[in-house]
């Protein structure tokens, strides 16, 4: 409170102490704020510039939101008015800057922008200095309104740079004219793209040229201050040159100048030179120039005593790495890694891994590098790194053997890092057979080697090793016995860790009961991994967000190197593309008996009767499948239903090399069916390219229950193997059955049986006793019933052997509740199927259809 009283005093000394107290010790939530703001307001309007300055400095030091609101209007007027004393203008400009940073809406740029920009021409360089800082912040937010500052800044800059040191008496610092103002102006110019106006452009380029020239002139003073001031301007100018990225000769000159600094006596300069060169390395113009200094940089890596300088050298090596020097640089980085500071190891490991992957021409080199990484800095090799090497080894066949051999040798060393065991375990498990021929890496030796490390590893590694062992069971049946012993060891079977125990138990069983074929299928080689952006890069970006920011600011147009794995996967075969099917359907589909031979008989317009009933019946219980296949065309379908609507996606695959033309699909429905089912097929392209697949959608609306299936006629012209044109025409059933419009209904036992009893009329039940066509396997039956579309109810039927289902068939006319009961007789291999529903036809149809399925 006393301090607030002091504020209102007229004596400078008292006022000063009052303001000092408030600036340093103010608590922004205090009630005194209002009083303080009032005092400040009074002082700002005072005629005494000293008081005004004190008040402004106080606002700038505190800069709270209340102050923003209170002074937002006064300050710009104060700043731009002609009466204001220069020192007050300086303080006002920076005060306004502080308020702007606190809340952006303090200034509205329209009226005051040009006046503020005009301050750049002020004769008092202190005012200009303060104004430039303000304009720099404002132009970031409103570049358009403050665009005028560019030309004024350039002219001011050129006047300073070309002045002799007698011109700017007060502002020359150790023979350097106005260094701080120059740096600020150069920084301001970095907010804007290079000037297009030719006059401005030439002036700016002359400035930059001048600055670069001065850097090479003999120094006017031996003092370090002179050198530092000169170089401060130089580095900012280089920063601007990099930002503009349009003048190759300037970039190269900058690069050369920095090159001389690389071996300068002063550590500061070496550090800054390395830092700036890092940015230059990303520019295409100067990249080559940077590479010339590779030797010096590598040398500084080895001899520098300040770790931050070495760190900059590493960053620079990373940035300047390209195909020509990759091996060299990676080797140097690996050597450095052995003695590097622990805090930077992880980042270095990522860098080396990214570089090695990006520039590997010979993937054996890549594998070597990564394994060496694991050996040198195993603890800092994060998971992503060794996942990546495994991805690459799996995807590249040519390197698999080499990787196995190298990993095997690495594992034989006495001190082996756990990550090496992980990588080794995986690779040997997949590709150990490639080196098993050699005596020294026979299966038994491989197994012993891995197992010797087993007990030293963490649980997750041991889990990985168990997987490897079971793969060995498949690859090397001769050592299966040993491996089974390991699995049956108590500390595996009864291990407290659930994952490990589960693996041990399951693998043991697997190795005992699975026949060699089955084992081989299960433990087949891993398929190739799909390409994605390297997880290494994303991890790297996460660990170094600031570097990312800097590089993005500088290199907006430049592309970040993307370490994407090369496309090593073979293009899938045509049949593989069409539909994902399970093997059983394709194998049955291709053995399509009853196809009329249509080869070599000339143009034929006969249409074969629809004979794909077998396939269609199979599709009764499955939503997707092959409808028809022969050497010319493959037709598959995929069904989606919702209440009484269904959508069938038809896929027509051209298996020949030549195109089909006049491709047409027409829907033929038996007349009775048209009243019960609306079928609408979307148009299909008349031409289908060789090897291509086209899709067609057919929509259905179920009006009433129906018995028959809709039929389509597929017709087109094709070229057969002899090169002659043939025509193809076929009628095919579509797999649309009444059960496709089922909605499963869950219900408890009482509900089911009460409903069952309700449906006891003769015309509501349909029963069928038939011999089983397929083996009476419970799981298979369950799957089929579930594929029917109704809900398979558990624990409802008192006899656990029986199966019951319930569902509602949706038609537009009505909902048909349906209950199904299937009673298998295992001894006789027969079934009794009972379907009860409130619509007779539905029950009958369903019963007949289902009888075919079991």
């Amino acid at each position, binding site marked *: 409170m006393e301090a607030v009283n002091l504020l209102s005093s007229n004596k400078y000394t008292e006022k000063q102490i009052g303001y000092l107290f408030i600036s340093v010790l103010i608590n922004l939530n205090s009630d005194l704020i209002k009083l303080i703001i009032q005092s400040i307001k009074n002082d700002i309007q005072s005629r005494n510039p000293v008081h005004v300055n004190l008040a402004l400095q106080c606002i700038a030091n505190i800069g709270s939101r209340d102050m923003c609101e209170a002074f937002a209007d006064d300050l710009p007027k104060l700043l731009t008015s002609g009466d204001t004393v220069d020192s007050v203008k300086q303080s006002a400009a920076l005060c306004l800057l502080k308020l702007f940073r606190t809340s952006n809406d303090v200034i509205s740029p329209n009226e005051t922008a040009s006046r503020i920009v005009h301050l750049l021409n002020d004769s008092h360089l202190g005012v200009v200095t303060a104004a430039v800082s303000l304009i720099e912040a404002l132009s970031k937010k409103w570049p358009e309104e403050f665009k005028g500052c560019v030309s004024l800044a350039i002219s001011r800059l050129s006047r300073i740079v070309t002045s002799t040191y007698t011109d700017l008496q007060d*502002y020359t610092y150790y023979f350097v004219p106005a260094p701080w103002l120059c740096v600020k102006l150069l920084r301001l110019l970095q907010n804007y793209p290079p000037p297009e106006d030719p006059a401005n452009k030439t002036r700016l380029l002359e400035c930059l040229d001048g600055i670069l020239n001065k850097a090479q002139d003999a120094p006017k003073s031996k003092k370090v201050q002179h050198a*530092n*001031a000169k170089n401060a301007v130089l580095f*900012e100018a280089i920063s601007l040159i990099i930002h503009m990225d349009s003048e190759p000769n300037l970039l190269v000159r900058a690069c050369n100048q920095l090159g001389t600094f690389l071996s300068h006596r002063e550590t500061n300069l070496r550090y800054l030179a390395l830092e700036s060169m890092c940015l230059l390395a990303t520019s295409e113009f100067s990249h080559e120039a940077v590479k010339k200094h590779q030797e010096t940089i590598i040398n500084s890596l080895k001899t520098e005593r300040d770790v931050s300088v070495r760190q900059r050298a590493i960053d620079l090596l990373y940035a300047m790495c390209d195909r020509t020097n990759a091996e060299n640089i990676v080797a140097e980085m690996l050597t450095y890694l052995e003695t590097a500071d622990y805090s930077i190891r992880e980042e270095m490991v990522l860098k080396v891994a990214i570089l090695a992957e990006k520039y590997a021409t010979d993937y054996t080199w890549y594998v070597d590098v990564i394994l060496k990484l694991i050996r040198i800095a195993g603890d800092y090799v994060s998971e992503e790194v060794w996942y990546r090497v495994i991805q690459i080894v799996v995807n590249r066949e040519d390197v698999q053997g080499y990787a196995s051999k190298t990993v095997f040798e690495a594992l034989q060393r006495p001190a082996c890092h756990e990550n090496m065991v992980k990588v080794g375990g995986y690779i040997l498990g997949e590709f150990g057979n490639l080196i098993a021929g050699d005596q020294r890496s026979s299966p038994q030796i491989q197994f012993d080697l891995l197992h010797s490390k087993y007990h030293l590893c963490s649980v997750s590694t041991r889990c990985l090793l168990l997987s490897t062992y079971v793969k060995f069971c498949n690859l090397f049946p001769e050592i299966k016995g040993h491996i089974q012993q390991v699995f049956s060891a108590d500390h595996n079977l009864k291990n407290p860790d659930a994952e490990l125990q589960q693996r041990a138990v399951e693998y043991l069983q697997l190795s005992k009961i699975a026949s060699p074929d089955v084992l081989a299928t299960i433990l087949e080689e891993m398929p190739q991994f799909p390409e994605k952006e390297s997880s290494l890069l994303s991890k790297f970006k996460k660990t170094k967000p600031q570097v990312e920011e800097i590089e993005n600011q500088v290199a907006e147009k430049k592309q970040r190197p993307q370490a994407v794995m090369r496309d090593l996967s073979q293009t899938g075969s045509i049949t593989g593309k069409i539909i994902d099917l399970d093997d059983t359907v394709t194998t049955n589909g291709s053995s399509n008996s009853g196809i009329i031979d249509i080869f070599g008989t000339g143009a034929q317009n006969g249409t074969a009767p629809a004979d794909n009933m077998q396939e269609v019946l199979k599709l009764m219980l499955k939503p997707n499948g092959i409808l028809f296949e022969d050497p010319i065309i493959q037709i598959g379908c995929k069904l989606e239903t919702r209440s009484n609507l269904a959508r069938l996606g038809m896929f027509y695959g051209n298996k020949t090399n030549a195109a089909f033309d006049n491709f047409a699909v027409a829907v033929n429905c038996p007349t009775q069916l048209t009243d019960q089912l609306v079928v609408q097929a979307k148009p299909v392209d008349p031409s289908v390219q060789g090897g291509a697949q086209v899709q067609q959608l057919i929509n259905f609306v179920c009006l009433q229950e129906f018995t028959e299936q809709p039929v389509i006629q597929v017709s087109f012209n094709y070229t057969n193997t002899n090169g002659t044109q043939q025509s193809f025409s076929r009628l095919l059933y579509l797999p649309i059955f009444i059960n496709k419009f089922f909605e499963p209904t869950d219900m408890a036992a009482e509900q089911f049986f009460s409903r069952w009893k309700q449906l006891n009329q003769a015309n509501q039940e349909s029963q069928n006793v038939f011999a089983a066509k397929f083996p009476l396997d419970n799981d298979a039956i369950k799957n089929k019933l579930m594929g029917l579309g109704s809900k398979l109810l558990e624990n409802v039927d008192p006899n656990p052997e029986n199966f019951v289902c319930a569902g509602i068939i949706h038609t537009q006319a009505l909902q048909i509740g349906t209950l199904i009961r299937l009673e298998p007789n295992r001894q006789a291999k027969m079934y009794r199927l009972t379907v009860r529903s409130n619509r007779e036809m539905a029950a009958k149809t369903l019963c007949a259809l289902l009888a075919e399925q079991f």
Partner: protein
Amino acid sequence: MIRFILIQNRAGKTRLAKWYMHFDDDEKQKLIEEVHAVVTVRDAKHTNFVEFRNFKIVYRRYAGLYFCICVDIMDNNLYYLEAIHNFVEVLNEYFHNVCELDLVFNFYKVYTVVDEMFLAGEIRETSQNKVLKQLMSLQTLE
């Protein structure tokens, strides 16, 4: 932008702390300790710039005092290094061969000098002549 200016002696006692960004009191204390720890272990073979949290510190040692300016990562190092020297030369002129005790006993005057040369986290005035002239005129006021 300058985040804060610190003048500390080798033992870690703060002779001036000027904050241009909001920190709580305990944060301020922690920062002061951290800066001291980082800066005092460095010697002549190190650079005058240290990365510190997500800022950087530009510092210089004058006899027993460390003058530290904490700035943003993107700022020009040598610019602030010479700003420190400029400031120290002004102090030197103003206090006639300044020493640590001058700063201790005349701390309010030091704040005035700081506010003349730096404001709102930016450099306000760089001409030593102008600053000293202003300071002299203020000194004559009662």
